[in-house]
């Protein structure tokens, strides 16, 4: 293996990881808004909640297309093994995203109260089910995919397991927390107070979920356990991640009490980042646990190079105008804001 053949997949693995993390936190908070509809029935509040994300949701969801494209372009084997293996949860996720995606326009255009209510429910159910499926996809991947010679050879329901179901549940809690953090930041008054209550509850629940997943994951496979117990750097990382998660927890609950607007959301982001690093360290260097590494899954050097040139130039540009567009819609959103 030449240096290029070694490092290109590493670079791409990092880029893919960053892309997926960006997707998770961006679409996470707007899927979370849908999840919060379960506990928020007031139509006027629901309007405001959707207004806070209406200008940005399609941009957020584009990161998922980016994830798919990077996987296909840089790790074609991973793409062609993971997708058929997790066929059912992925298809259900896509269908759920259809419901919640069209609900933005359909709900606004609805002429009757019933239709409005119906599309509100579609938004709620679609967001929740899509999130749950994403969690099971993650869980299913960590459980491992049965392959022979770079081909998926398992069966349709291999991913179905208490662990993957728990991951689905945990992600619903996590996105719900991101959503409430976002609302604390972007709204005021009664709705903000509601979001604070939701955040307190979901934050405690998420901490439990993170702890459970952190203990459960190494027990799934002996290789994971081996990774965490036999490498001193992993042991150090585990301690550091745990300490940071606890520090974030202190900051989070204090900021809810002291009425800070932005801190709860940032704390939720931090939890996601820390959990993500933990999971990535478990799986590394396997992109399709337990057999396929990032090098085995890699597309040829020429493909990875071609896409890397474009990404190096374009991704910073994309990030810049995405941030710019977010800034245009900064500030508190209230029900008197006319745009839908």
């Amino acid at each position, binding site marked *: 293996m030449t240096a290029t053949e070694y490092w290109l997949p590493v670079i791409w693995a990092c880029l893919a990881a960053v892309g997926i993390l960006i997707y998770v936190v961006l679409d996470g908070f707007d899927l979370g808004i849908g999840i919060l509809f379960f506990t928020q029935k007031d139509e006027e509040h629901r309007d405001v909640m959707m207004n806070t994300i*209406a200008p940005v949701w399609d941009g957020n*969801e584009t990161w*998922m297309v980016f994830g798919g494209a990077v996987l*296909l*372009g840089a790790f074609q084997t991973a793409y062609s093994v993971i*997708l058929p293996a997790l066929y059912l949860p992925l298809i259900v996720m896509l269908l759920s995203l259809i419901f919640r995606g069209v609900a933005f326009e359909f709900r606004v*255009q609805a002429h009757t109260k019933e239709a409005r209510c119906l599309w509100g429910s579609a938004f709620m159910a679609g967001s929740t089910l899509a999130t749950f499926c994403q969690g099971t996809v993650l869980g299913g991947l960590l459980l491992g995919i049965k392959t022979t010679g770079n081909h998926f050879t398992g069966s349709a329901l291999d991913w179905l397991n208490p662990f993957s179901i728990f991951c689905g549940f945990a992600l619903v809690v996590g996105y719900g927390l991101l959503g409430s953090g976002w609302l604390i930041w972007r709204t005021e008054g009664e709705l903000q107070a509601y979001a604070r209550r939701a955040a307190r509850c979901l934050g405690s629940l998420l901490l439990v979920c993170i702890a459970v997943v952190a203990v459960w994951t190494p027990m799934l496979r002996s290789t994971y356990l081996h990774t965490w117990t036999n490498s001193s750097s992993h042991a150090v990382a585990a301690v550091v991640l745990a300490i940071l998660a606890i520090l974030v927890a202190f900051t989070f609950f204090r900021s809810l009490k002291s009425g800070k607007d932005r801190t709860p959301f940032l704390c939720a982001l931090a939890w996601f980042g820390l959990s993500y690093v933990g999971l990535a360290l478990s799986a590394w260097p396997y992109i399709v646990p337990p057999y396929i590494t990032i090098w085995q899954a890699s597309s040829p050097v*020429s*493909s990875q190079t071609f896409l890397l040139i474009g990404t190096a130039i374009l991704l910073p540009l994309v990030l810049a105008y995405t941030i710019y567009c977010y800034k245009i819609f900064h500030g508190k959103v209230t029900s008197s804001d006319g745009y839908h």
Partner: protein
Amino acid sequence: MVPDATALMLARIQFAFTVGFHIIFPAFSIGLAAYLAVLEGLWLKTGRNVYLHLFKYWIKIFALVFGMGVVSGLVMAYEFGTNWSLFSQKAGAITGPLLGYEVLTAFFLEAGFLGIMLFGLGRVGKGLHFLATCLVSIGTLISMTWILASNSWMQTPAGYTIDPKTGHFLPKSWFEVIFNPSFPYRLVHMGMAAFICVAFVVGATAAFHMLRDRKNGKPVSEPVRVMFSMALWMAAIAAPFQLLAGDMHGLNTLKYQPAKIAAMEGDWESEGPASEILFGIPNMKTEHTDYAIKIPYAGSLILTHSLNGKVPGLKDFPKDQRAPSPILFFSFRIMVGLGGLMILLGLWSLLLRFRGKLYNSPALQWATLVMAPSGFIALLCGWITTEVGRQPYTIYGLLRTSDSVSPVMLPSMIFSMTAFVIVYFFVFGAGMLILFRMLSHQPSSHESGADPENALQNSHAKGATRLAEDLSGKRS
């Protein structure tokens, strides 16, 4: 774990179903984004309210259509893997980076600036808003370019080598991959198609309101007249041009995919001079086109531009390399027939226009109204022709469809197929209903001083907020 023939067929039907639904929305968005950019540009240049009213009217439609395009497109990005994992594994090194560039150069651009385009008029200046509209429009065009490069590469592969060990396609020259032989023709043909689709939707909407106003004894409002005129200009110019583009695309197909041409034409024997079969029923079993009505020499004339040119027949190709002629024969003829009607409508409108009677002919209005879906039907028939015509291959001549499919078992396929059909008909059916209801309202046409953009000029912040409210159709 070899999927059976039924699973393969279901994978194909499912992909055709989802992509067939999907393509309508991007085609609509490509044409409509360009139309919106033109309208906003005209408004800024002339200051005439009528363009702003039309902009505000169509941008609501655009928001709806774009949203449906995003969610149905997301399905596509993952279906390459869920349904065609072997194709993705073998050709991902080539199609993957192309999709990656599409996301980086187009999807982010569209989605990023869509927010400003839809909701930003009260928050940014007019110039920046116009820029956002233009960027969204350019994004739709860039997106089309990449996906057609990828699709064209599957039709006329170039710039690749095949790894002898794994059978994977490896890129050799990205320039040749992207600018493969059929790409420029397909790009022009599809781009024109998108503009034509929208021209006929806009024209039909105007025609509907003109006919209804006439029935109610009301005068036709200026925005309605302007959109009728603009749409018919587009039809009159684009439809003949599309015939030319289609002809050139056909010649390109004859050169690189002669078997597809033979299947489209229902020709079994290679002949020169060849006649054109106007109507008939190709029979794959008896290798004959039944009930054929032929025009002598026309086949050679159309395909080779000479009276005696040699035209391929399906019998030139082994049976296991033939595309299903009955499908292609009819899809191609429906597309061409609709194209002919569009050209006639365009000519008719020109005739009336130069006589100064463009807005006075109920017959023309009825014809335009009836032609509303013609662009989309022709577009779908064109895609059926080119995609079914590529069979039995996914990568023409190199990778068979049966060697591309995922190892997904029949029960999963049946489940997902059922779910797709139910969800698509429900969601996009509801979308259509909402669309029709929106189109049944007239664009606003008040010209008084209380008009939003006058207010915008007087007091930027206040007027702009109202304008933004108006844009979202939520003014209460």
